[in-house]
Every structure is written in structure tokens, then in C-alpha cells.
């Protein structure tokens, strides 16, 4: 069958309006530059509505959305249970001078749910929590240096960026050290070379960096990291903003068999309602108490109510198992669709957050970008640079439809590249 090719006339009209009053029209990861819209003509710019596994753009094109707003959509857009909890709380109180007791309810639920959590601190975005984690580690150890894994992303605060980025000072990143993922020897060497100076090692549960195949931890990697951190008095921070709850309701450190000192959550925490959480070990609770860190909306009750409902529903659904099963079904289908047309689709990372790459001899991603564009034009929202996200609203029919579209996109690729 032949699928409809999307038209984006209204999207472009809105984008022209936006460009006049908003830097880059749409900035950040949802925009055409950081979002890697290649080519720009294949992608929509603005959503009109969203429900379950889909969103519709302003031209009325429907997309099966494998980016899930880059993670927050974990149960399905506009999930009734979560939204009703939020709406009910909104009738009572939200942003108030004294916080709602919903805050305690959510903290208790997190402490009971997340294996390594003895307490929870709330903010709005993932970056708020990674920054607090770093400040906590520095305050606790009275050390300056941080170890990052090459290819990392921990938000947009100056300390997370790199030398040479606009607006970032040399001093902002002067204490950042870098090591390759899964390289335990290099990590140990770096720690030895900077003995007594390293405050924290921060990493995601597995390497889900952009533009490259994702890498799971080697057997025993995290246990060795844990031991090194214990031996050297270094705070172990897990940035679980992206993976959190999708791999394991008890936290991704639990999934890989270790305990973080501090663990950062955001995206899947409240199914799109704005709240993030830093959870941690008892011995760091006092340190966090002493840090000046707050925000106007951080203690708002509505997102807390949404988060409570979201966590309870994720538990009820046994979400990680469903996402893994669906992710495997989808990626097996996509791989077969590629093979049917003489292509090799490489799938990496965890099935719940799969990363795709059409293999090409030049290693330049151009073939992959062409295939992704053909999928997006037909209503399957993939990206060409970033891991994807499964959500609980995705059905078997959605997955079958996706594979059919992917197959047609591979046929287009074959037609365009008879030389391959």
C-alpha cells in the first residue's frame, strides 16, 4: 500500500510568525536545528492536539510519536488517570504560600518506590536536579572536580556544557574531567591522578548519547564504578532523567544492580506535568538541606498530584515490562523491514528507549536521515540523532502500522539508491 505524504503549509505559516518573535522560531530540542530536521521540509513544526500514542500537527497530520515529547509522555498523551488527579488538585490548590501536603505524599511514594532513595527534593526540569546533585556532591565532599562520560548530556546549565559553547566561560568547565563509557581502567586512572579532588562521577545508566549507537554497561561495570567511588569518597550520581521508570520502577540503578548516592528523575515522573525530583541517600540529606536552591513553581501541588497518579499507574501496568516487550516487537519488525529491502538497520540501547541507525559504508548517517525523513513524511515520528521512547498507550496495531510505513520508506530508499 501507499501511504499519504504529509503537507505542512500551516506549519510553515506558523513558523514564519514564530521566527519574528521567538529566537530560532522554535528553539531547543523541539526546534529544527537541535531537533535535526533533515531535511526541514519533512518535519512538522507545531502540534495542535495529542492523545495516547499520537499527536496531530496544525495541518491535521497524525503522527505515531516515538519521541514522546522527548520522554515525558510515558503513559500516553492526556492520560485520564493522571490528568484527572491533576485537575482535581487544581480545584483545591496549586501554587500557594504554604505547600500542599501532596508534596509529602509524592516524596513518600518515591522513597517507597525508588530503591536507593531515602528522600526526595522537587524542582521542574531534569537540569534542575542534575545541578542540585553536583552542588550537593561538592558541598558534601568539599571538592571541585567532576567526572563526565564522553558524549554525555546532563542539561544546559553552564557546568554541563563545553569549552567553546556560546556563553560558557572557561571557568564554568575548568573542573570537568572526561572518560569514555565502560572504560573502568581509564576511570580508575583519572581518579588516581586527581586523588582527593573529585566530588562526583555523573553518568546516565547506559550511554544513550546522540549521533551514535547506544551502549549498555559492560558486565560488572557499574559495580566496579560503585566500589571505586566508595574507595575514593566520590559521590556517585545517576542521571536517570531520560531512562527513569522506563527500565525499572525502582530506578535504573536498581535495574543494573547497584545503588546510586544521588539519582535524578524528570521526564516519566508525571506524564508531562512539570515536576522533577532528586532522590538520594540519607547521609546526603543534611547537605541538601543546607543548599540555597528553590524556584517559584517548584512546590506547586498540581504536578505532585499528577506524579503520584503516574507512579501508581506505572506500577499497576508493570510498565517496564510492557515497554520492553513492545520495543522489541517494534524494533524486530523494523529490522526485518530493512532486511527485506537490502538494508541493515542497527538497533541499540534498551528496547524501551531504542536507538536506530541505517548502516552505511560511509558512516555519515545520510542514508539514515533519508529513511527517517520518509517515515516522518508518512506519519511516523522518528528522529535521526536521538534515542526514541516507547509509551504505554502504544498498541500492537500502532506497531504494525509503523513497520508497514517503515517498509515503504525503505522501498523509497532502495529506489533512490540503486547503487547500494
Amino acid at each position, binding site marked *: 500500500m501507499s501511504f499519504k505524504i504529509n503537507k505542512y503549509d500551516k506549519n510553515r505559516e506558523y513558523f514564519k510568525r514564530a*521566527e519574528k518573535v521567538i529566537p*530560532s522560531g522554535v528553539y531547543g530540542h523541539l526546534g529544527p536545528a537541535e531537533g535535526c530536521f533533515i531535511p526541514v521540509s519533512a518535519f512538522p513544526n507545531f502540534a495542535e492536539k495529542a492523545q495516547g500514542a499520537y499527536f496531530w500537527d496544525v495541518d491535521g497530520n497524525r503522527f505515531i510519536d516515538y519521541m514522546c515529547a522527548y520522554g515525558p509522555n510515558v503513559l500516553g498523551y492526556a492520560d485520564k488517570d493522571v490528568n484527572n488527579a491533576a485537575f482535581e488538585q487544581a480545584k483545591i490548590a496549586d501554587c500557594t504560600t504554604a505547600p500542599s501536603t501532596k508534596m509529602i505524599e509524592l516524596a513518600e511514594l518515591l522513597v517507597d518506590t525508588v530503591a536507593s532513595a531515602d528522600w526526595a527534593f522537587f524542582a521542574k526540569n531534569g537540569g534542575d536536579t542534575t545541578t542540585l546533585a553536583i552542588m550537593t556532591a561538592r558541598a558534601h565532599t568539599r571538592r571541585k572536580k567532576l567526572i563526565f562520560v564522553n558524549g554525555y548530556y546532563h542539561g544546559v546549565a553552564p557546568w554541563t556544557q563545553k569549552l567553546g559553547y556560546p556563553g560558557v566561560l572557561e571557568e564554568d568547565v575548568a573542573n570537568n574531567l572526561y572518560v569514555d563509557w565502560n572504560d573502568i581502567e581509564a576511570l580508575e586512572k583519572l581518579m588516581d591522578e586527581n586523588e582527593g579532588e573529585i566530588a562526583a562521577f555523573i553518568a546516565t545508566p547506559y550511554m544513550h548519547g546522540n549521533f551514535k549507537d547506544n551502549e549498555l554497561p559492560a558486565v560488572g561495570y557499574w559495580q566496579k564504578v560503585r566500589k571505586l567511588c566508595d574507595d575514593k569518597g566520590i559521590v556517585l550520581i545517576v542521571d536517570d532523567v531520560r531512562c527513569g521508570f522506563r527500565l525499572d520502577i525502582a530506578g535504573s540503578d536498581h535495574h543494573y544492580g547497584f545503588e546510586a548516592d544521588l539519582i535524578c528523575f524528570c521526564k516519566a515522573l508525571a506524564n508531562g506535568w512539570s515536576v522533577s525530583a532528586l532522590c538520594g541517600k540519607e547521609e546526603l540529606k543534611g547537605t541538601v538541606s543546607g543548599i540555597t536552591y528553590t524556584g517559584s513553581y517548584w512546590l506547586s501541588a498540581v504536578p505532585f498530584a499528577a506524579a503520584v497518579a503516574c507512579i501508581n499507574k506505572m506500577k499497576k501496568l508493570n510498565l517496564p515490562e510492557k515497554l520492553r516487550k513492545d520495543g522489541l516487537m517494534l524494533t524486530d519488525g523494523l529490522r526485518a523491514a530493512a532486511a527485506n529491502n537490502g538494508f541493515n538497520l542497527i538497533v541499540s540501547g534498551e528496547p524501551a528507549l531504542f536507538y536506530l541507525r541505517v548502516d552505511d559504508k560511509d558512516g555519515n548517517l545520510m542514508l539514515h536521515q533519508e529513511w527517517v525523513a520518509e517515515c516522518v513524511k508518512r506519519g511516523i515520528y522518528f528522529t535521526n540523532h536521538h534515542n526514541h521512547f516507547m509509551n504505554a498507550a502504544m498498541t500492537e496495531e500502532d506497531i504494525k502500522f509503523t513497520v508497514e510505513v517503515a517498509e515503504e520508506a525503505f522501498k523509497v530508499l532502495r529506489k533512490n539508491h540503486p547503487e547500494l
Partner: protein
Amino acid sequence: MVDQKTLAYINLYAVLGTLENLCELDPAASALLTNKKPIAIGFDVQGGPSATLTFKNGRCRLEQGIKSCDIKLPFSSCEKFNGLIDGTVTPIPTKGFTKIKFLLKDFTALTDLLNKYMRPDPADLYDDEFFKISTSLMFYTITVAISQIANNDKVGIFTANLIANGDIEMSIEGGPSATLRANGGRLVTLKCKPDNPRAVMSFASMKLARDLFDGNVNALECIGSGAISMKGLISMIDNLNRLLDRVAVYLA
């Protein structure tokens, strides 16, 4: 902060190196060299770059190092050489006193012409041909400067180390192209289109390229409108843009 050594590399390879393109693009430049004996000028900067500019048959060519030359211009420091470019230092040759006339007359006329295109009178840019030559010369200067920053500037070195090996294509539709070849954290610019780029950044028009070079528009801003298109290993372009940002520090 401007690093004098990086600036010296830029001034020699990117700025004086653009004389190659000037002689190709402007008949007035090549006319200055026709019917004249070939001549080579060696620039030897202590603690910095060295290169030879050869003028032959109306054309100019820059090569790294000094093998043989007719006129040799030594500079005791990068600062002194940079002074030559901004007009505050007068060079004293150690070789080629009999050919000093070329240096004083023809070479000076060429660099004056280059300066006319590189720092144009706004009114001149209304002339289509002048605009095209001026923008093309800026393109070559900038693309070569990117590599010098990548290899010498402290921030540039950090950024270049994040670039995967391979060729990046920078091109202007209907205009010039260049290859930024990355290898082991070092960059080399070739003034031609790569056969097999790993990443491509293409400007839709000379006008857009000009606006970008003049700092009137931002590259990221232009991607959304399609005025700049990119494909391939975007992380290479991302880091290339960091280097492009630093060109303004040295060539503003």
C-alpha cells in the same frame, strides 16, 4: 581573548592565503602579475607559521614552509608578523633586496586590492560582481581560519578534538565550496568540494552567506527556514559552528 600565535597562523594562511583566490577571481589582480618573472616570497615567523607565496603566470599559490624563495621576510615574533598585516610593522627582508620593487609595488597593490574586498565600502557591495568576489574571498578566508583556530587556539583545540575524523563540506549554492578535513583532532582546509563528505553545511545563497559572515544572522536561526541546510554527522557541524563563532574573535 586573541592569541597572537593563532592570529599569525590566520593572517598567513587564511588572509594572505586568500591572495590565491583573489588572483583567480579578479582579472585586475592577475593583471598585476602577468608578463612578470615568477617570484616567491617566504614568510618566516619565529614561534609561528612559515609559508611561501609564489606568483607565477598571473596566479598565486601558498605553500607551507620555505624551501626556496626570492624574497625572505623574517619576523622575530607572531606579534611582529601580525603588525605587518595591520600595517604597524614594516618588514625588512633578509634576502631579495634586488626584488624589493615587487614587494613595494605589486605585492602592496595586491594586498590593497584584497583589503578592498575584505573590508569593503558598503556602496561597492551593490555591484553584483564585486559582491560575489568579496563574499567568495570572505568564504575562503573564513574556512581556512577555522582550521587555524582548530589547530592553535586553546578553545579551538578543545572543540576540534570533539570532531570525528572525516570531511565536512561547507558550500554556498552558486558559489564556492570548501572541505574541512578532520583527522585526530586537527583540521585542514581544502579549497574544493569533498568527494565523500561525512557532513554537509550548505548556504542557500551568497546573500545569506554574507549576512552570516557579517554577523547579521545566526546559523542556527537559518536552519529552521531552510536557508542553511545540513546533513550527515551533525555533531561535526555542531562543533564546526563553535569554531566558526571564534573566527569573529580574530577577524572581526
